[in-house]
């Protein structure tokens, strides 16, 4: 440092200027630093603002999606609750066919689950309460009295709209704006009116609530319609049953009268037959003795006549015996013993009886049965039936013809049929041949003697066994009579 420099330092002006410069420099440095700091702070603030802005944008997204989610969740929950309730109502009332049972479903549980504190259902025509939940009797009476004079306001509507004057008046009575009113109709006529009000959970009645209420009302309408149809059907059925009962009673009466007549006829036949049989037996005895010339030799002409008398007495005896058998069967006096028995042997034995007669007429008679058929039958009665059927076949089969007696098992039954190659029976006569004394009128038949009682007896014998008998015939070709008998179990 030189002298000049030292002197300058001692100079106060110089020193002041120097200090000033130093301060200025320091200030400049400070300001520069501060400016730098402010710039940095600004940048930080801007960055933070940007972050906050971004966060705010994210908040927007979060809130929007959260709200949407909650709305959907709410909607789904509401719908699910209502659907469950409607399902429950339908399940409980699906098969209900009485109005009382149907309206009993509108109970406290249903109304509360639907979300309302109060409900009133009343008959629209009688203006009487059908059911109510949580209602005040005074309010109920006021509502019914109001609707009594405002019936027209409900007609043609499914649910009372918010703008309806009547809804406003009911709302004033119930002191709540949260209510729903709907008519319950059968066809187009209002049967009842349903009102629900005062939501349990504080909330305004919304569209889904209205829809659920409307669905329930529509369902009630459908149920009422179903009940109406059932009631009408029930009345028809009732009337029909009444008529059937009347007709049945008439038929029973007629049947009883027929039974009385039939019994009288059987009794008459039986009595007459009995009365005839005694003298006939005596006549037969004497005629037989006379024919056999036990009282001495008879002139030839007298003997001829006596033989004719004896033949006719035999026929008469057969008629009387058959009639007696029919009468006994009809009156239940004949003792029937249906027991296990062998059918094949019986068929063969009966057929053998007719072999000489058939041979005489040049008729082939054959038997076609399995080795054994164990059936349940009254042997003596079935024997008579077979004798009648094979005898008839022999009578109506012309010379050179053929008779076949078949016996076979069909499931748990034995089917016996007697087939001939006779003249056959006309179709119109088929359903009459089992009647007593009925004889088919044709030239062939006229030549053959018969009483018209044989088939009638056969039918009764088979009926006594609770089995079936039927006939198939081709006119000019032949006839087949068939009947069934029950096979013995494990046979």
């Amino acid at each position, binding site marked *: 440092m030189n002298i000049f420099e030292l002197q300058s330092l001692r100079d106060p002006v110089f020193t002041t200027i120097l200090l000033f410069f130093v301060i200025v420099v320091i200030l400049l440095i400070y300001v520069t630093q501060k400016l730098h700091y402010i710039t940095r702070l600004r940048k930080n603030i801007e960055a933070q603002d940007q972050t906050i802005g971004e*966060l*705010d944008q994210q*908040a927007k997204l979060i809130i*929007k999606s959260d709200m*949407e989610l909650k709305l959907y969740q709410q909607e789904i929950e509401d719908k699910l609750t209502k659907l469950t309730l409607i399902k429950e109502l339908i399940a409980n009332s699906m098969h209900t066919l009485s109005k009382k049972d149907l309206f009993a479903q509108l109970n406290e549980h249903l109304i509360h689950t639907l979300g309302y*504190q109060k409900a009133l259902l009343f008959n629209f025509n009688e203006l009487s309460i059908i059911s109510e939940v949580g209602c005040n009797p005074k309010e109920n009476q006021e509502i019914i009295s109001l609707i009594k004079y405002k019936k027209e306001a409900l007609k043609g509507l499914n649910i009372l709209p918010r703008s309806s004057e009547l809804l406003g008046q009911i709302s004033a009575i119930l002191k709540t704006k*949260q209510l729903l009113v709907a008519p319950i109709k059968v066809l187009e006529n209002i049967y009842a009116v349903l009102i629900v009000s005062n939501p349990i959970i504080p909330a305004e009645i919304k569209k889904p609530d209205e829809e659920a209420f409307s669905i329930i009302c529509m369902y009630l309408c459908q149920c009422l319609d179903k009940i109406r149809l059932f009631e009408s059907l029930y009345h028809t059925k009732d009337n029909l049953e009444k008529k059937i009962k009347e007709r049945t009673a008439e038929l029973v009466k007629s049947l009883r009268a027929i039974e009385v007549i039939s019994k009288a006829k059987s009794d008459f036949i039986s009595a007459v037959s009995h009365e005839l049989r005694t003298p006939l037996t005596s006549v037969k005895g004497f005629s037989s003795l006379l024919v056999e010339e036990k009282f001495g030799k008879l002139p030839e002409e007298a003997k001829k006549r006596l033989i004719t008398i004896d033949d006719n007495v035999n026929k008469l005896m057969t008629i009387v015996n058959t009639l007696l058998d029919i009468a006994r069967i009809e009156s239940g006096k004949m003792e029937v013993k249906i027991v296990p028995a062998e059918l094949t042997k019986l068929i063969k034995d009966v057929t053998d009886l007719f072999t000489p007669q058939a041979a005489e007429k040049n008729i082939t008679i054959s038997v076609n049965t399995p080795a054994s058929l164990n059936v349940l039958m009254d042997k003596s009665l079935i024997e008579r039936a077979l004798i009648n059927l094979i005898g008839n076949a022999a009578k109506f089969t012309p010379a050179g013809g053929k008779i076949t007696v078949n016996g076979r098992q069909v499931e748990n039954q034995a089917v016996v049929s007697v087939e001939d190659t006779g003249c056959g029976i006309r179709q119109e006569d088929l359903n009459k041949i089992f009647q007593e004394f009925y004889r088919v009128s044709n030239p062939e038949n006229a030549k053959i003697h018969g009483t018209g009682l044989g088939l009638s007896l056969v039918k009764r014998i088979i009926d006594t066994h609770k089995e079936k008998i039927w006939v198939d015939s081709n006119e000019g070709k032949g006839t087949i009579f068939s009947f069934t008998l029950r096979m013995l179990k494990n046979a």
Partner: protein
Amino acid sequence: MKKEEFTIALSERDREKAIKEVSLKIKSAFPKEVSHLIIFFTPHYNPVNIINSLNLTLKPKKIIGLGAPLLIHENRIIDKGIVACCINKTGVRSKEIIMKSNEADEIESLLRLSLQRKPHGGDSFLLSLLFPHLNPQTYLKSLHVSLGRSLPLLGLGYSNQYAPRAYQIINNSLNETSANFYIENISITSTQIHGYIPIGKPFIITKASSERGIIIEINDQPATNLYKHYLQEKFEAFKKHHLFSLYPLGIKLEGTRQLIHITDCLEDGSLVCTGEIRENSVGNIMLIDQSSANEALRQKMLLFEGINDALFFVVNSLSRKKILKNSAHSEINLLRETLSGSQNIIGVFSDYTLAPDKERGYITMDTASILVSAWQ
């Protein structure tokens, strides 16, 4: 309280059957006499029938009854039923104060006169059941003036226009106005659990009317613009479905967040709300989900660790139930799980609760929280 000092009962049957069932259950626990009976019932039951039936079967010395939209019993939310609690603890006394007026001055003098010689705190507390005719803010102001700001209090109230017919049973009569019950010889420990988390940019309430419960402007704009900002094109649907309660406002007051529940919006863009509103307070829109709710519940329930043999009285929020839906059931279930088997839970749902806020040192109103109190 010990088991020999209280019992609880529930019935979910219909009408009189439910009252009979509850009476029989209590009678079997306390066959001799019933001192205090607290009974909560859903709107499905007729309060007159409840009074008649109780007087026939139990003949309690005192009845405190309340009709509520939903009840709580142990780990369940009951949507139809009667929940009762019988307290037979020695020395328990109660005094009812019915508030027919909704004027602050009258409420203040009524409370002062009714409770002037009663001790505030210790083993006594005030149970307030408030109905829509009374503005809760007015009531809180009167309460603070007359009885001080740190009074042990449990309060619940209904403000919603769709609230069910609010009934109280006070001994043998029905009451449709707000009432207080001063209960002696029972000490309470309480906490409010919300679990909401702030979301989005903070805002400032620039214009509000706390008396009318209206927020007029937020950030110098109509208050509804806050929701329009976040919901944009969804706002109309939001407004139409009255969904404001889904997103309450969380206002910062003395270091804590106070929830304000929005009930409606006016045509000028103002928001009608329940809760403590102050101009120039800062807040956020709040959001809750099950995990944040459960976490808050676990944290807050630590307060009750070490409390044995207590009856837990829970007041849950209707708007919280609306937001959490089915998660509200699991929340109650979780609440039950945090307590031991010897502790019983009963409760109701309401629109708002009143309880002392320890951090702020005075009674606050909450609209979306669970108020849990242990009675000993």
